[in-house]
């Protein structure tokens, strides 16, 4: 299993990668900044799960979601963001985001992510 995590903050990339490796020990986690988004998305078919921040330099929240959905339509898509407005959560859901998690990532939230991911896989089989 391969997980792609996109965030402009190095602190967030470090903390989130650690959580992901702990809870998905079999997974290869690739944490990148938005500057590497284009070239990484070229190989995005390799990823089973993509988690992204929404507020990043040079790209809007909607753009990043649309790009991921275009390049990796089969991947499980989750958002991890500090923008936790109810209207933003609804908008992301409409765009096709499967799970919306408010920052920071916690034990409880990663369990939600894990359950949603495995439930999604079960339904698609």
């Amino acid at each position, binding site marked *: 299993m391969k997980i792609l995590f996109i965030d402009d*903050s190095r*602190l967030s990339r470090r903390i989130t990668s650690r959580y992901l490796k702990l809870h998905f020990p079999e997974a290869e986690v690739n944490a990148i900044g938005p500057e590497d988004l284009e070239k990484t998305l070229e190989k995005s078919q390799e990823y089973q799960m993509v988690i992204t921040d929404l507020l990043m330099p040079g790209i809007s929240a909607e753009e990043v979601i649309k790009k991921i959905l275009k390049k990796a339509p089969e991947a499980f898509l989750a958002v991890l963001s500090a923008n936790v407005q*109810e209207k933003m959560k609804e908008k992301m859901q409409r765009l096709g985001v499967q799970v919306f998690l408010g920052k920071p990532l916690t034990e409880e939230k990663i369990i939600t992510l894990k359950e949603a991911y495995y439930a999604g896989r079960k339904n698609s089989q």
Partner: protein
Amino acid sequence: MPEEKILNSLKEILSLGAIQAGKVLEELSGMTVELRITKIYKGVFGKKFEKQYFLMRQRVNGKPFNASFYFSMLDTEFLKFLATLDSSDAVRDYQEYDLVDSFLEVGNIISGNVIAVFADFLNLELEYELPTMVTFEMEPELMEKEFFFTKVYFEIKEIEVHGYLLLAFSKEAYSAIVKKLGEIIND
């Protein structure tokens, strides 16, 4: 509506935001965080505080709402706090870039959560601008314009860290909140 009543209501809303910020700090540090909000002040923010504070500015836009939120934390206390987040052996190992990055990310998470309390209350969808680190000197409006602001005392007993979060917001934000309060009272 009398100003005192408005300021009290504002304190209630900000307290909700502070509770949310407290939860965020607890989740980030894994420790018990006590937060106490003081009264809401009105005045020129830049004249009230020491100039050595680092500030994070988060602007939000939404018709008809344009506002700036500022977040700050006492610098040395913040360094200690950062050390709890990433299990770094020593804060001195932090590169300047990492320090700024961590300050902005923690500030972004706290202000993002507080702003969401306002947005949900006002039933608005606010567009967040990228958080930026600024100084008082870089922000003339802080030295000239009146802001509404509050000091939120925080304490993490496990590591003996205490300090203040400073939250300031613009008159436009205040007007939008007053309007919404008026609508709620009239309903």
